[in-house]
């Protein structure tokens, strides 16, 4: 993996996710943690952008512990736990948060 974009803040209240979505390219990963796991609920423009990015070869992941804390869920194949996030970080060339 080239770049791991780690998004921590709510995708509704903050716009940090937009910079990641703008810069991410094939081979990069977008990982939503902390309040950013709200990404599973939108906003609408985010959902469209994520499908677009995935078609372009960007991987999308959500942190299990942060989803569970907030009573949220995501498709099983996109959920990783802390151990998985540790591996993402090991395998990334650089991390952008």
């Amino acid at each position: 993996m080239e770049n791991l974009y780690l998004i921590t803040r709510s995708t509704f209240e903050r716009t940090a996710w937009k910079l990641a979505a703008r810069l991410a390219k094939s081979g990069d990963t977008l990982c939503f943690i902390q309040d950013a796991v709200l990404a599973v609920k939108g906003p609408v423009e985010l959902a469209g952008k994520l499908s677009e990015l995935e078609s372009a070869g960007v991987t999308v992941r959500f942190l299990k512990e942060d989803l569970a804390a907030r009573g949220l869920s995501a498709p099983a194949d996109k959920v990783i736990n802390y151990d998985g996030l540790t591996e993402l970080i090991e395998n990334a060339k650089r991390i952008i948060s």
Partner: protein
Amino acid sequence: MIIGFLLRTGPYTSQNVDTCYHLAKRFLAKGHGVRMYLYEDGVINLHKEIKSPQERNVPEMMTELAKAGAEIRACGTCARFRGIRKADIIEEAKQAGMVVFAKYANECDRFLSFGF
């Protein structure tokens, strides 16, 4: 591999310190080195006078990481701007200037930053 962290937020205000703890613990268990530079409100995470009845104790979590091998340093300037004296900081950590932050940037294979 050596993993670096820049942590800019304090305890009981932001989840950042918890995320750093959970990740650092796992990196250490896998045999990686961990360097943590606490900046701005991040320095408060090391305050040994913190009392947190019925809640997780953040300076104890930091102590646990340090005892497991993490090198933890707090920006001295940030500490002075928040009233934190050298003696207020857990024994397992220290104050250090930006020279150490630069050293961490140089020696780490991965670097994570957590802010506002």
